[in-house]
């Protein structure tokens, strides 16, 4: 098994060396002049950059990452189960169904409570699909 996993370590160092060497090569052959002026400014479509970009962004991305981790853990619990499924048969199906159902309850909960939608609907004027809806927080 060591010979299986040893390539990972060697590949990492090899990639570091290779890309590093290519960077050095590029540094040698690339032109060095014209580094002054506005060239090193942050690109903001030709305008002078307005403040730093390290601002607070929408928390939705964080929520997506949170929910992802739950599903990720679920998936990796299911991989060992999937491998032995054919050997165990019905028992495996029942046990996994219990496991999944508990999680599907949570999934249904976040779905119903509108946590999965990117743009939260705050005001509902009607029930139809094309009913006018007021959106909030659609800055990204």
């Amino acid at each position: 098994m060591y010979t299986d996993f040893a390539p990972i370590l060697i590949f990492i160092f090899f990639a570091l060396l290779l890309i590093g060497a290519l960077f050095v090569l590029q540094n040698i052959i690339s032109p060095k002049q014209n580094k002054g002026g506005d060239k090193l400014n942050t690109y903001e479509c030709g305008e002078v950059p307005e403040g730093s970009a390290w601002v607070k962004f929408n928390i939705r991305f964080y929520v997506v990452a949170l929910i992802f981790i739950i599903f990720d853990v679920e998936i990796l619990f299911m991989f060992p189960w999937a491998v032995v499924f054919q050997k165990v048969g019905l028992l495996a199906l029942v046990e996994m169904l219990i496991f999944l159902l508990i999680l599907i309850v949570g999934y249904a909960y976040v779905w119903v409570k509108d946590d999965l939608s990117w743009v939260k609907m705050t005001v509902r004027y009607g029930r139809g699909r094309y009913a006018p809806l007021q959106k909030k927080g659609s800055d990204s």
Partner: protein
Amino acid sequence: MAEVAFIIIAAITLASAFFVVFSSNLMYSGVALFFTLFGVAGLYVFLYADFLAATQIMVYVGGIMVLILFGIMLTNKIASTDLRQANRGRFMAGLSAFILFLLISAIAVTTQWHTGSPQFLDTTVAKLGMMILYQYLLPFEVASILLLAALIGAALLSRKK
């Protein structure tokens, strides 16, 4: 050969872990944590736990690290350069860390570790699957309830503005 690789991985893990603790820039700490988690996955390989190593990468590097980086980027004062870890109360922190260290060392010394030549399992995944389905069925199902609680907790947290 294996020893050299082990020393390299352990050194990377330890060095980046120290960097996580001592770096004053939160973002750099987060990035160093990436290398620590990666190194831990390497250590799992040395325990012949291939599935666990891949799991470590998938959950911690691919999931938790994203969450941590998002968390750091979400902090209010990320733009200001004086983003520092709190350095107040060094004495109390050192004391509690020392006590924790003593505790862990005591546990490490007194535990009867299972020693012996490592046993190479051809497929750890199948063995894990059988254990999940028979021996550790209850913890497995309870884990799903834990995940359910985490899911609902995450949803609740996100709803409060």
